């Protein structure tokens, strides 16, 4: 390998990227756009759920009870309805997702010490949020019910509220959330988006940069020149690794400062691991570029592959432990899953090289394997 020739290819590549406006936009604009789109689209926490009440009791106590839900940040109160039919219509039209029905004699029964059943009607069309909404409603209802019981007992026995609480709630469950104290989906998924977006863009850039030369025929200049295969490949790879690494830094800044996800780990280690993950992905793009002939094919393959690996096999949305059979095995074949472990460790758990060295070693080995394959697949003579 001749360093001078390698740098010449790298420099040429760099100039080309800077001059091609569409490509430049793709290289630096696409990751930012994707981060915004996914950041808002994949990750929102279930909040502002539109809710309505059917209050058949119209009492002070029923309004008090409703207030518990209205004040919560999880629900967006849409008003009181007159009948169950009205709630049915709004749920069917997708205008509200929850309706809570308070029965007649709500106040009378509770004051007399009787049990009362309210109904929570949840739109189950979208299953995931439906489960979470049920959880919210359960939590608010038991808090409201507990308060009521406490004051009832305190009044009837003539004891303090605290004493009443020990009687009615003899066990106190203290829940502590680790690593993601506010249980925000955004904090859990946004860091993983760095993995996903680099998985999409880094191979795409590298693949396009080689295939473009194939399509325009510029690659024949390379074939005819004194540049060796290894020099050409390395020269192509270097600027693309640099771009993707810059993107990784930009993405990290967006995740921590724009989306506000906490970063507890060692920054130096995180970027060290990220660099090797970027090299892995760029090498994957290089391998793809050697196997296809047109830019559209390169684009489609990198995007489809990126989406399949990122969404299903990386642990970003479904935990790896929840995968079964062949899916579990497939997930272990790609570096994305290991980098996701690095991200989760570095962002939420403050794990460093001591705990995550196997992942980094794996990136190095993976890159070496891919680059080796590229070296053997690249021929300066077109096959006849």
């Amino acid at each position, binding site marked *: 390998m001749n360093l001078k020739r390698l740098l010449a290819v790298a420099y040429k590549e760099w100039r080309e990227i800077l001059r091609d406006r569409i490509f430049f936009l793709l290289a630096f604009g696409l990751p930012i756009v994707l981060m915004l789109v996914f950041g808002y689209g994949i990750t929102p926490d279930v909040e502002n759920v539109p809710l309505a009440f059917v209050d058949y009791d119209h009492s002070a106590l029923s309004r008090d009870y409703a207030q518990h839900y209205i004040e919560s940040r999880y629900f967006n109160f849409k008003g009181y309805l007159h009948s169950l039919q009205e709630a049915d219509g709004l749920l069917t039209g997708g205008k509200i997702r929850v309706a809570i029905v308070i029965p007649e004699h709500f106040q009378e029964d509770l004051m007399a010490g009787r049990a009362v*059943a*309210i109904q929570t009607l949840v739109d189950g069309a979208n299953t995931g949020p439906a489960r979470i909404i049920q*959880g919210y409603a359960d939590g608010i209802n038991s808090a409201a*019910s507990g308060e009521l019981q406490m004051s009832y*007992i305190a009044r009837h026995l003539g004891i303090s509220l605290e004493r009443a609480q020990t009687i009615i709630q003899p066990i106190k469950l*203290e829940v502590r959330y680790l690593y993601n104290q506010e249980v925000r989906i955004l904090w*859990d998924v946004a860091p993983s988006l760095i993995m996903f977006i680099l998985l999409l863009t880094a191979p795409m850039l590298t693949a396009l940069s080689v295939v473009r030369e194939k*399509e325009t025929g510029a690659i024949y200049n390379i074939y005819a020149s004194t540049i060796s295969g290894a020099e050409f490949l390395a020269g192509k790879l270097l600027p693309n690794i640099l771009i993707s690494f810059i993107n990784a830094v930009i993405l990290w800044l967006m995740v921590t400062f724009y989306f506000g996800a906490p970063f507890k780990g060692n920054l130096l280690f995180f970027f060290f691991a990220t660099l090797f993950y970027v090299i892995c992905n760029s090498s994957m793009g290089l391998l793809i570029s050697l196997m296809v002939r047109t830019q559209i094919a390169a684009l*489609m393959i990198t995007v489809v592959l990126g989406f399949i690996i990122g969404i299903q096999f990386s642990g970003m949305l479904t935990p790896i432990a929840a995968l079964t059979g062949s899916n579990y095995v497939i997930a272990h074949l790609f570096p994305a899953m290991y980098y996701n472990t690095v991200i989760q460790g570095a962002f939420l758990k403050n794990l460093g090289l001591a705990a995550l060295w196997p992942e980094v070693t794996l990136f190095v080995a993976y890159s070496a394997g891919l680059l080796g394959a590229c070296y053997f697949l690249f021929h300066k003579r077109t096959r006849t």
Partner: protein
Amino acid sequence: MNESLHPLQFVYVWLRQLQVMTIKELRQLSRDRALLIYIIYIFTLDIVIAAGAINTELNQSKLVVHDADHSAASRELIYRFQPPYFSLVGTVTDANQGLYLLDQGDAMLFLDIPERFAATLGQGERAAKVQLLIDTSKATPGFLASSYSARIMADFSREWASQQLLRAGLEPGSVPIIQNQRRIWYNPTLDEAWYGTLAQLLTMITVACLLLPAAALVREKERGNIEQLLVSPLTPFQVMFSKVLAMILVTLVGTAVSLFGVMQPFFGVPIKGSAPLFFALTALYAFTTAGLGLVAATFARNSAQVGMLVLLMVIPINILSGDRTPLESMPLWLQYLTNVFPLRHFIEITFGILLRGAGLAALWDSVLAMTLLGCLLFALGLWRFRRQFG
């Protein structure tokens, strides 16, 4: 050219031309074997795969317990954390070990029952404390685990509360309580496959309707075929609309196959509303989305560019239209912005008609928005096409 014709004859000829062109588009599609396989795949196998892809329920969360009390009460409490939501993977003898297992990701929950738990409960002087540590680095399962644990704990606590009440001189049945009767509508068992398959179908229809007509138009531009079409008696409207028409037909057939051939028989996806209405609106959606694709095609010079443009549109449309996440959770400005995505309205329509049994009365606003969008996009595409080749 057709001035001498009787108006009815003119309409007949015009329709016949459109028919011939549409058949040409369909034939072209059927000869591209890779594309044909792709289309068959997205309406059949892909739907089957999607049915098992999502699981939003808590599944065998690993629980580790530190029981410093070793009493009947503590064992009874631990015993209540049962599959399918929880699975007890082990007990530890000191709390630090539990924390270590959480750190390593070998456990998701750590239940710490202190010494004298049963004794404190028995005395009833103060509340007996139990600590539960939850790894919430995966937020959704974390929240569900916390919510289900709270229910288990509340049930357990209630039984002890009855004893305390009796001792204090109150009949447990005489204390008021608000019970929550939970009803899930439209999908009572929260079957993931209903939502998963429909969401995947919508995604795939969107990709196909955006990409295929756009690619067909650009291919004709690339090969110069368009010049031939334009010197023929065909109008630009017919050239473009025949591509849309072909796409509508493919979408309708594909949707029928996946709805009646895959989703209904294998996954029990219901059709609560009117099927004809659903298919009519599916045709409208195909028209709208194909229109968007054609607009993109007028901006592109070659297949690579149109691929890139479609890609840039299809990702935000699919992610932000509320297919996977409810719209109301997004920032307000984004909710307004997504109104220009046809998919947003079609999602309301699809889940409305098929799962919730809604009719036009409940969905008129979505239908109106989609119709307007469709006409606007098609007109824009036609206008740009005329300007380029007119």
